[in-house]
């Protein structure tokens, strides 16, 4: 599917690496390059610059292999120089891909080194989906621009799109002030405005095509590059109009920095650029921007380091309802991430069949710990499921992880969900095994405590990972028949609904037990060959107001 990260860590080929320069000078002092500005602002995440350098080294190695082997002539050196300049990394796939399950990421890294494996294994629990961006050197800019438009669509509000048009246009003062010629930047801005217009038209038409319009636009190289360039100019203008905020982090004066690292047609976004876009474009409309750094750093154990740009209200207070744009950074490359709630907009529901609403949509929880019930027609059912809200942390603090919670019991969710043992007949045999430790719970107030003793009994000893042991996918094969396979934040509990619970509710699917829904026989399970993510409707199901109580779940 994707060969990462080397292929996608692209885009710096335009700079002859310092190593190359050195080599060339050695043999032929007449040919030379300006060295790449390698030093970076101090606030960059660990591994940032060295990762990028890694990419340079790759190009350098190729050149060096053919370079010093013989004394190259002028022509040959020029040829090498041209090859180096024209070097296009093998970039495949769409400019912006379809949204897909993050379990693919965990799968991709299953043979990687433990730091990556552990981090990606825990990814699907928190971030259900991701979207690839082609690693052609623009992926960071592209990822932000795309998620910006997508986040705008999430509100499904035409007025919002029109307001954005006005707001962006009002920023052209900054562009003028930074010395950009109006007739030059208008070409780029117009593509962005036209996209806003087309998205608004599509929302008005209520044909559910807005997402496709957006994806198409970003897969049109010309449109995408225009919009990316426009965003770059906005970032540059922002930095130049706030020199005091940025100059301390830059090695050059602000103008030079912008021309080299922002405006240059072939330059991947760095932390300063992200910051500028967050300040100029993202935060003013109340969006938050979150970047997850999937690298080898050991910041918080198994957690992926996250940096969040938080919008604030004019009074300086944090905003209450925030749309968050999420990026996944892997050395030299950016992709787009989603939590389940990020994609559950009314618009999307038109595009995918929504399974009949059962009282328990537990498979959702396998993808996220952030499921937030939105309406109150089912007040307490969700709260009866221990482990459904393992973090007890609400939507407003999405960057916090449940690994921070003081629960001493090892969390089974770091076991990759791929460890599912097939359940031959989904309903019958499992139901009996269920009985061995499941006590039906009818009243929510007693359902919050999981006595640790129970918990340990239910887990085969072999299944308790020693921290920080990487997940052991093969372990579950040894499990006895009494073990109910689960993924995500679920752990076995004595407080569990009987399989028949809620059978008074109308079902259209034959098997709606929680066991079935957690198995790969469910099409909503990512291991199902016909995988189709389930969608939830914030307006028609689940209850609100029980977040507070969940905090006691993990005590």
């Amino acid at each position, binding site marked *: 599917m994707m060969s990462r990260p080397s292929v996608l860590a692209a885009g710096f080929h*335009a*700079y002859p690496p310092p190593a190359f320069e050195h080599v060339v000078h050695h043999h032929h*002092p*007449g*040919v*030379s*390059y*300006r060295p*790449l500005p390698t030093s970076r602002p101090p606030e960059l995440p660990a591994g940032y610059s060295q990762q990028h350098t890694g990419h340079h080294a790759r190009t350098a190695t190729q050149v060096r292999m053919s370079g010093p082997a013989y004394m190259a002539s*002028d022509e040959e050196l*020029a040829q090498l120089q041209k090859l180096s*300049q024209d070097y296009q990394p093998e970039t495949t796939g*769409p*400019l912006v891909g*379809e949204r897909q399950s993050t379990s693919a990421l965990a799968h991709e890294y299953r043979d990687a080194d433990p730091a990556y494996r552990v981090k990606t294994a825990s990814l699907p629990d928190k971030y259900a989906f991701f979207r690839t961006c082609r690693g052609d050197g623009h992926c960071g800019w592209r990822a932000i621009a795309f998620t910006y438009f997508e986040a705008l669509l999430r509100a499904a509000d035409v007025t919002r799109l029109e307001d954005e048009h006005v707001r962006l246009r009002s920023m052209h003062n900054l562009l003028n002030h930074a010395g*950009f*010629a109006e*007739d*030059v*930047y208008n*070409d*780029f801005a117009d593509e962005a405005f036209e996209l806003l217009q087309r998205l608004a038209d599509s929302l008005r038409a209520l044909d559910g095509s807005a*997402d*496709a319009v957006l*994806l*198409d636009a970003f*897969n*049109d*190289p*010309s*449109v995408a*590059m225009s919009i990316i*360039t426009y965003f770059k*100019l906005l970032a540059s203008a922002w930095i130049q109009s706030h020199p005091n905020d940025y100059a301390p982090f830059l090695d050059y004066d602000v103008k030079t920095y912008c*021309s*080299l690292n922002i*405006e*240059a*047609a*072939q*330059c991947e976004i760095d932390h300063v650029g992200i910051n500028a876009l967050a300040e100029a474009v993202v935060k003013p409309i109340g969006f938050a921007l979150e970047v997850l750094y999937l690298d080898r750093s050991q910041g918080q154990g198994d957690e992926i380091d996250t940096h969040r740009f938080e919008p604030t209200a004019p009074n300086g207070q944090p905003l209450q309802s925030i749309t968050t744009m999420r990026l996944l950074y892997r050395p030299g490359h950016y992709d787009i991430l989603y939590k389940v709630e990020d994609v559950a907009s009314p618009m999307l529901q038109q*595009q995918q069949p929504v399974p009949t609403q059962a009282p328990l949509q537990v498979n959702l929880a396998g993808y996220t710990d952030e499921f937030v019930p939105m309406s109150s027609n089912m007040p307490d059912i969700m709260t009866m499921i221990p482990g459904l809200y393992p973090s007890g942390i609400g939507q407003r603090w999405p960057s916090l992880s449940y690994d921070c919670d003081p629960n001493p019991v090892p969390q089974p969710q770091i076991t990759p969900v791929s460890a599912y043992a097939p359940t031959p007949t989904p309903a019958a045999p499992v139901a009996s095994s269920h009985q061995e430790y499941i006590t039906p719970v009818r009243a929510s107030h007693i359902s919050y405590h999981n006595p640790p003793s129970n918990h340990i009994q239910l887990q085969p000893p072999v299944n308790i990972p020693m921290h920080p042991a990487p997940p052991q996918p093969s372990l579950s094969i040894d499990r006895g028949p009494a073990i109910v396979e689960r993924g995500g934040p679920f752990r076995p509990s004595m407080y569990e609904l009987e399989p028949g619970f809620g059978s008074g509710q109308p079902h259209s699917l034959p098997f709606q037990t929680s066991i079935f829904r957690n198995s790969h026989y469910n099409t909503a399970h990512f291991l199902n060959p016909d995988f189709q993510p389930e969608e939830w409707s914030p307006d028609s199901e689940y209850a609100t107001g029980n977040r507070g109580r969940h905090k006691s779940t993990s005590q």
Partner: protein
Amino acid sequence: MALSAGTRSNGGSANVAQRLQKELMDIMTHPTPGISAFPVDENMTSWAATIDGPADTPYAGLTFKLSMEFATTYPYTAPTVLFKTPIYHPNVDFSGRICLDILKEKWAATMSVSSVLLSLQSLLGEPNNSSPLNGQAAELWDKDMVEYKRLVIARHKNPEELET
């Protein structure tokens, strides 16, 4: 949802032509003394340009022909610019290839034909001797301007002497 990356597959080159059309218009309506440029083919992807050597430089009074090639990715990639007139200069090799940052890593989509030509014109008077393509020229520039100028004149040909 079908990807239709190719819906506007022609959009790339059409947009390039559009953009270059605009630049041409700009050059025609606001001519800059000392530089000129005009497309040589109907789809605008090849241009011929001239720059006059700036006064008070060894190139004063000389005119240089250049060729500019625009890829379908223009303006997101720099045009390929070559000196067609032989020129003796630290940052130009004997095939007319130019080493100039804005034609490489510093290229930005906001630049244009005229900004490239103006940059080249100023490069004539302010060579970047720290990264020369022509090491001898770089050395002479600092040490022996008389000899430098002699070599400039010796190498130069008038546009009408060029076959293309």
